[in-house]
């Protein structure tokens, strides 16, 4: 018996030695909380697929600084409650270096405090400005600011001599944040909001809402939402004979919404990142190589159109990877500092210039005004 035990002990010791050898290149643990299913799945779906693609790509090249990336993607279904428990789990149990996501603004705001407390980097893929304003030490976001998107719309309205508008917004975090910004920015741009309505994300028909706007004689409609119901608004507005321009948010940047709205989507004006028009950008554009590569890789691998939302996850992952490289370590504090001091990073959303005051790093030049022509995205006015 004794001899046999000895052999077992020897084996165990050997196994531990081997284990220790492997441990030298410990993987970098990265968490992601994304709405892979549920009402915001059009965000989380492309985002999670993008992250999987990038992790595979990076690991195939031997990882970052010799460390492989270990990705933990949690499906929150768009629910803030789940996002909160996943955030705690990722920080306390998995001890991740950073969390990518969540997909929605509502979820991000719920876990902002948890990331701060847990001293874990949060690179949100959600748009609302409140995520980085006021600045929180550990919280960053990759999508462009909604205030810049609204300013881009208002600039366009001014050139079209529009002053009376109606606002429709979805009852999600994104919709609420956008509505607040629109109401804040309208007076300084000389624009009056004569009617404003909020609609449910599960709406099936919104004829009554647009009728109310039309009755208020609005010159243009701003439809600020990120859920599929936003396509219903455009359709119903055209059906009841509203002929003025319809402006959408950057949440319209998914070709499936255009397909869903059909002919009604023609001529809709919205600000968005350049991913949607990567092919028609001039070669001089700094973002073009990044955009074209991401778009081609994604579309080849998943056989579906790339969307700006997947691009936000691309930026989050690449910013983190770049920061780890730059910091030369996986120390949370050092990587965080590396993100905060990163300048001129070319991503899909724009050219990022982070600073201690700006945890988004993008300005109004990150937006391009787009429209829909023959069922496809096109540069507006070109």
């Amino acid at each position, binding site marked *: 018996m004794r001899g046999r035990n000895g052999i077992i002990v020897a084996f165990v010791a050997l196994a531990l030695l081997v284990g220790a050898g492997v441990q030298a290149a410990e993987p970098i643990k990265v968490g992601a909380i994304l709405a892979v299913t549920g009402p915001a799945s059009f965000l989380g779906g492309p985002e999670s697929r993008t992250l999987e693609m990038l992790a595979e790509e990076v690991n195939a090249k031997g990882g970052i600084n010799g460390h492989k990336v270990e990705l933990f993607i949690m499906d929150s279904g768009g629910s803030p409650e789940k996002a909160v428990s996943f955030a705690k789990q990722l920080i306390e149990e998995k001890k991740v270096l950073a969390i990518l996501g969540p997909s929605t603004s509502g979820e991000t705001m719920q876990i902002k405090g948890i990331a701060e407390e847990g001293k874990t980097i949060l690179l949100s893929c959600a748009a609302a400005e409140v995520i980085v304003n006021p600045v929180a030490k550990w919280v960053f976001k990759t999508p462009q600011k909604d205030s810049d998107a609204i300013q881009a719309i208002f600039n366009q309205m001014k050139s079209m001599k529009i002053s009376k508008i109606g606002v429709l917004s979805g009852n999600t975090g994104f919709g609420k944040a956008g509505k607040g910004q629109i109401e804040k920015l309208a007076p300084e741009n000389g624009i009056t909001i004569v009617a404003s309505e*909020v*609609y*449910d994300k*599960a709406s099936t028909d919104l004829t*009554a809402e647009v009728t*109310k706007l039309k*009755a208020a004689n609005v010159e243009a409609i701003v439809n600020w939402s990120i859920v599929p119901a936003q396509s219903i608004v455009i359709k119903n507005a055209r*059906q009841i004979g509203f002929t003025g321009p319809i402006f959408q948010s950057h949440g319209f940047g998914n070709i*499936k919404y255009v397909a869903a709205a059909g002919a*009604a989507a023609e001529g809709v004006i919205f600000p968005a990142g350049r991913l949607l028009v990567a092919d028609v950008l001039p070669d001089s554009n700094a973002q073009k190589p990044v955009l074209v590569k991401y778009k081609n890789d994604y579309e080849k691998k998943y056989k579906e159109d790339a969307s700006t939302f997947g691009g936000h996850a691309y930026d989050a992952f690449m910013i983190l990877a770049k920061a780890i490289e730059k910091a030369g370590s996986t120390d949370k504090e050092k990587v965080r500092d590396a993100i905060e001091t990163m300048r001129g990073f070319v991503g899909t959303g724009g050219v990022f210039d982070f600073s201690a005051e700006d945890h988004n790093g993008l300005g109004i030049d990150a937006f391009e005004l787009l429209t829909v022509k023959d069922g496809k995205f096109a540069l507006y006015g070109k």
Partner: protein
Amino acid sequence: MNLDLFLQYMVAGVTYGTIYGIVAVGFNMIYNATGIINFAQGEFVMLGGMTAVTLGRFLPLPAAILGAVLITMIVGALLEILFIRWLHRPSVLRMIVITIGLSILIREGALHIWGESVRALPYFTGTSVTSIRLGGVYISPQVLWVVGIGAVVVAILAGFFRYTLLGMQMRACAANRDAARLCGISAKNMVTFSFMLSAGIGALGGCIVSPITYVQYDSGVPLAIKGFTVAILGGLGNSLASAGAGMLLGILESLSISVLPAAYKDVISVAILLGILFVRPSGLFGSVEEARLKEF
């Protein structure tokens, strides 16, 4: 509010109402045969819409819809045969748990098959911007299709339950299962048949409303909630009543938007439902005596 505007709100209300009504009719079907509420009804609507969109890639529209209805009917029958048929006198609570479970099962299944993206059938007539103008009122032709097909379905059903042998057998089972069996009616087959029928109606509803509402793997639940509200409002078990209650609720919701912020739309419909249930627990059009005999 001028007349045109009022009529435009009415059109919106009728659109909402028909969508709710068509879901409610499916609830009634299974309720009539089994005395239970099938909480997977919304999923039948979703399945119909999704299947039709997929079939629509290879088949002309009418064939795609017919195919979707048939496939959903088979799914309905299979669900009943696999999960419900072998139960011996299940309690109401048990059936609720089972049908909610089925609803989750179908939803997750659809997510795996179709993914999370939004789909829609093309408009039957014209495109998403086509509308018919009557005076100052605009109506989308699809609304006319929905109202027309919905009315035909309700009329056929009413006739089916009243005049055909099969329809009467189904009613007999609902009224008294044991007595029906003594008369030689196979109660189990009737239940299977009612699941098929309600799956078919749900699927047809899903097809005709999908150009308006879109369809996604999880669009069944909100539809089922509204449909259920309307079925209760009209009085459970009565298809004509639920069509009427659907219209009423749709119009009230639409008119409420004209005076109140739209965000209160659902608050109003639920408040109306509660109010009516306090005053008339048997529903707007249900008979009080009949309601006393019902188990649920």
